C-alpha cells in the first residue's frame, strides 16, 4: 500500500524543465535512495513531494488522496511527512529542546510535557540529549543534523524525506549522521533519501532510483542497480563515482 504516490509530475523553472513526467511511489516501511548527478532533479523531486516547490503539472497523493487545495490541508500533510535539509534549518532563536518541541506543540497541539518527553526520547536516539540547552550556533554540523533528525522524528511522521543530509558535513561528521539514519532504516521507518553517499545508498535502500536530466533513468533493488545497471547512463555515473 503506497503512502505517497507521485504521478506525471513535471516541474519547470522558467523554460528550464527540471522534472519530466515523474512516476514514483513509496510504500510503508520502505527505504528509497535517490542518486544522480547535481542538477538531475533529485532535490526538486523531494521538495515537490513536500510542496516546498510548486509543481508545474501532475499530482502528489498521500494515502491515495491528492494533496493541494487549501493551505490548511497542505500544512496537515506536511506535519505527517517530515523533512531533513542539507543546511539543517534549525531555528536559530531556540535551543535544541525548544527546536524539537516546536512542531509538536505548535502544529500538533500536544501538551508541553508530552512534547518534552517525546523530544527527549528522540534526542536520546540520535545521541543529542545531553545538549538540550545548547543553541544551534553552538553545535557542530553533524550535531546540528542529528538534532534536525530528532526534530523531524518528534513529529512522529509517517514518512521522512532527507534532502542530501550529509552534503554540508565534513567526512568525520558524515559517519555520525549516516549511523543514525541506518538505525532508523533498521527500525522500519519509511524514508526517501536523496544522497551522494553511494555505499550508504547500496547498504540501506530497498530500492534505489537513479535520476538523470529530470527523469527516473533507472529504479531497481540496489543489488542490481549498483552491480549490474541496465541503463548505460547509470553505469557511466557509477563508474565515475567509484573512480573518484
Amino acid at each position, binding site marked *: 500500500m503506497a503512502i505517497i504516490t507521485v504521478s506525471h509530475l513535471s516541474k519547470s523553472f522558467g523554460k528550464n524543465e527540471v522534472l519530466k513526467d515523474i512516476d514514483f511511489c513509496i510504500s510503508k516501511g520502505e527505504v528509497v535512495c535517490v542518486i544522480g548527478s547535481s542538477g538531475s532533479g533529485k532535490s526538486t523531486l523531494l521538495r515537490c513531494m*513536500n510542496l*516546498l516547490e*510548486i509543481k508545474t503539472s501532475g499530482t502528489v497523493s498521500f494515502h491515495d488522496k491528492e494533496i*493541494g*487545495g*487549501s*493551505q490548511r490541508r*497542505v*500544512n*496537515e*500533510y*506536511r*506535519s*505527517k511527512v*517530515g*523533512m531533513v*535539509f542539507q*543546511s*539543517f*534549518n*534549525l*531555528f*536559530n*532563536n*531556540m*535551543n535544541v529542546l525548544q527546536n524539537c518541541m*516546536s*512542531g509538536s506543540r*505548535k*502544529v500538533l497541539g500536544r501538551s508541553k510535557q508530552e512534547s518534552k518527553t517525546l523530544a*527527549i526520547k528522540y*534526542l*536520546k536516539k540520535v*545521541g543529542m*540529549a*545531553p*545538549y*538540550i*540547552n*545548547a*543553541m544551534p550556533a*553552538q553545535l557542530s554540523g553533524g550535531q546540528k543534523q542529528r538534532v534536525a533528525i530528532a*526534530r*523531524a522524528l518528534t*513529529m512522529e511522521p509517517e514518512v521522512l524525506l532527507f534532502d542530501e543530509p550529509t552534503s554540508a558535513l565534513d567526512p568525520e561528521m558524515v559517519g555520525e549522521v549516516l549511523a543514525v539514519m541506518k538505525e532508523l532504516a533498521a527500525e522500519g521507518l519509511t524514508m526517501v533519501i536523496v544522497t551522494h553517499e553511494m555505499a550508504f545508498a547500496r547498504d540501506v535502500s530497498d530500492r534505489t532510483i537513479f535520476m538523470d536530466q529530470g527523469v527516473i533513468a533507472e529504479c531497481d533493488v540496489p543489488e542490481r542497480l549498483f552491480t549490474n545497471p541496465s541503463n548505460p547512463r547509470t553505469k557511466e555515473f557509477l563508474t565515475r563515482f567509484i573512480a573518484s
Partner: protein
Amino acid sequence: MERGIFYWIGFLLQEFWPNFWKGTLITIQISVLGTVLGFLLGFLIGIFYSTPAHPNDNTAKKILLRFEKALCLIYVNVFRGTPMMVQAMIIYYGLRTYGVAITSFIAAILVVLLNTGAYMAESVRGAIHAIDNGQFEGGKAMGMSHLKIMMSVVMPQVFRNLIPEMGNQFITNLKMTSVLNVVGISELYFVTKTTANIYYKYFEAFLITGMIYLVLCTLASQLLKLLEKKMAGKNEYEIAAEYLVQ
C-alpha cells in the same frame, strides 16, 4: 558687578527646577509612549508587507493582500516624506478646524507614533528579508502556517537584530519631540524657552536643557545596550548530565 554663567545656571535651577522637571517628564512620556506604540505599528506593517501571496489563495484574498500592501506603501511614503512639524500642525490644528479636537498631548504622541511606525516598517521589512530562507522552510516542512513561523521563529530573530535600530529611533524621538512645541505642548524645549524669556538667559537655560537631553539619550542608549546583551543569551550552555550515556 556682572554675575557669571554658573550663577545664572544655579539660579535658574533653583527657581525653576519644577518647570524643567515637568518638561522633562512630558518629553519622556511622549517619546516613550510614541516610540513603543510606533514599534508595534512598525512591526505589524512590516509583517503585513512581507506576507507572500500564495498560489492557492483565491482572488478575493489576493486583491485584499494587494490593497493592504498599497495602503502600507502610501502610509510609509507620506510619513517619511513630510516633516514632523508639518504633521503636528495638520493633526492638531488642522483636524481641530474640522471638529476633531484632540489634546496636544495626544496629538504629540500620535505624530511620534506614526513617524516611528513608518521608519520601523521599512527596517522590519528589511530585517525579515535578511532572515535566511531556511528558517521559513524549516517551519513550513513541519506544517507551520506562515503566521506561526513569523511569530515563533522569524520575529524573535528580527526583534533581536533590530534592537540597535530601535535605539536609534528612540534617541531620535527623544530629541525630535522638541519640534512638537508648535502644538503648544509644554515639553522640555517649550518649558526652557518660556523660562529663558523671563530673565533673557538663553545661553544658561538652554545649556541646562542640553545637558538634560544628553543625559536622557545616554541613559536610553545604555538601557538598550543592556537589553541587547540580555537578548543575546549566554555564551555557554550546560550539558544535561542526566542524559549522558555512561
